[in-house]
């Protein structure tokens, strides 16, 4: 049971990551592989605010979101100079840079040693020590993120994002300043990733750079593509499937170190198969 709850919590965290990345990749057509960077910045910022300033989690998290959004805004401004493949490469560059900062800014992040002893959230004297309680919290947060994403994509704003994905030049002739739109959605999505980061840090109570590497960005992207880019239910489903699959591998009886490597292989194989047979993902309609 405890194990299922653990998987559910991870699905929720990756659900938030995938929905937010989908706003960038699926809805707006910017192929970002930097998402784990914002996940990481959110996790580190939450951790530091919790441990160094002793803030309550429910103050630390929003602050961490703001910090992450500021960084995302700066990165977004630079990325707005690029399109298509160049965009993907440049975002990859930022993903690597942020990871290297996590690894090497020892005074703040303790580098590869990571930061242990992160407290679980508490609210009015109630601490989310029990995983069931934490799962509830994660689901509530996921629901909020989902609702916000849905609100955005169903508005005129969302339609404009999709039109930018389809033909940025054509839509700009209709009077839309596409750079602002792209920057806004990139920043909001990064803020959502930061929420996932904060949840992750206080759930695991330990963070290290490896959880926020470029590999992780690719994993999130795989979730989005598997589920179906350009829809909201798709990434959510993708998150459950891709978090669950490697666990199933373990049940088959593979030793855990082999299972870990199988996990990577599995994502690779899934991505290739999808691109071949179902580029729109499980429930999506949009072909990348």
């Amino acid at each position, binding site marked *: 049971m405890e194990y299922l709850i653990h998987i559910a919590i991870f699905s929720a965290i990756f659900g938030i990551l995938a929905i937010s990345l989908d706003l960038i990749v699926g809805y707006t057509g910017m192929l970002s592989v930097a998402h784990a960077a914002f996940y990481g910045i959110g996790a580190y910022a939450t951790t530091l605010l919790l441990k160094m300033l002793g803030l309550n989690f429910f103050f630390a998290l929003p602050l961490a979101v703001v910090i992450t959004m500021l960084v995302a805004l700066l990165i977004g401004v630079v990325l707005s100079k690029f399109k298509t493949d160049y965009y993907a490469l440049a975002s990859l560059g930022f993903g690597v840079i942020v990871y290297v900062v996590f690894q090497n800014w020892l005074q703040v992040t303790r580098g590869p040693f990571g930061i242990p002893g992160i407290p679980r959230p508490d609210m009015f004297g109630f601490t989310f020590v029990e995983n069931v309680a934490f799962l509830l919290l994660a689901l509530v947060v996921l629901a909020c993120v989902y609702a916000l994403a849905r609100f*955005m994509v*169903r*508005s*005129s*704003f969302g*339609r*404009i994002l*999709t*039109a930018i994905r*389809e*033909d940025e*030049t*054509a*839509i*700009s*002739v*209709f*009077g*839309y*300043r*596409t750079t*602002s*739109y792209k920057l*806004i959605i990139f920043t909001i999505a990064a803020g959502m990733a930061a929420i996932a980061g904060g949840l992750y840090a206080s759930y695991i109570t330990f963070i290290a750079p490896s959880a926020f590497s470029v590999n992780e960005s690719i994993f999130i992207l795989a979730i989005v593509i598997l589920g179906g880019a*350009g829809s909201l239910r798709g990434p959510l489903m993708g998150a459950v499937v891709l978090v669950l699959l490697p666990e199933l591998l373990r049940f088959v009886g593979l030793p855990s170190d082999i299972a870990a490597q199988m996990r990577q292989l599995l994502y690779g194989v899934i991505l290739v198969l999808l691109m071949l047979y179902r580029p729109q993902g499980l429930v999506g*309609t*949009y*072909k990348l």
Partner: protein
Amino acid sequence: MTNALETKQLVKKFGGVVAIDRFSVQIRKGEITGIIGPNGSGKTTFINVLTGISAMDGGRVVIGDQQEKGGIKAWEVFELGIARTFQNIRLFEQMSVQDNVLIAMTKRSPLAALFERHRDIHETLVKEVLTRVGLYDKRRALAKELSYGQRKLLEIARALATSADMILFDEPFAGLFPEMVRVVSDILKELRAGEKTVVLIEHDMAIIRELCDRIIVMDAGQLLAEGMPKQVLTNPAVIEAYLGV
């Protein structure tokens, strides 16, 4: 008669190719102005420069009663009251027909757009323009699912939906069946009747003769001739350059 648009010594180069060469013309308000010229003479490039899709390399543009401009950004074009279609159709392919038209009508500022849902006013205008081009029944289809002619008509509907004062059409008739040609030429006439300004790039001389109040002839990026269709189309220089006699 006042000008809707005037260019002064407009220049556009692509590397060594001078696509628009010291091009000075006036487009009059409320008229249909035809632009003709051989393939590669710079017609499309001209309206690309006017709509900020290609940056100009020299010269000035005056739009309506605005100040002279030495450059135009694509997103300014709508505010200037200009809409256009594309020779190589540029729809939002994986969006519905209706959404393609809605893009022309919704709030331009991100914050306002975020709190806007499409409502009755939008529905009414969508219905009006889509009915005009005979695509209302297809409003839920994706743009990419339409036939070539329907796609051209959808582009026109999208331009109409902006309610712009001036619409630039880049070969709207090319590849259309006769009944669709009828629809489009009626639309252009209605625009003129509604005192809108129309610029029409077209190769078919019969259409040009029928619709245009004035025509501009381009050749190798330069102005070869301009005036009433009757005069211009009998001009020996035009006949030689364009009609290839």
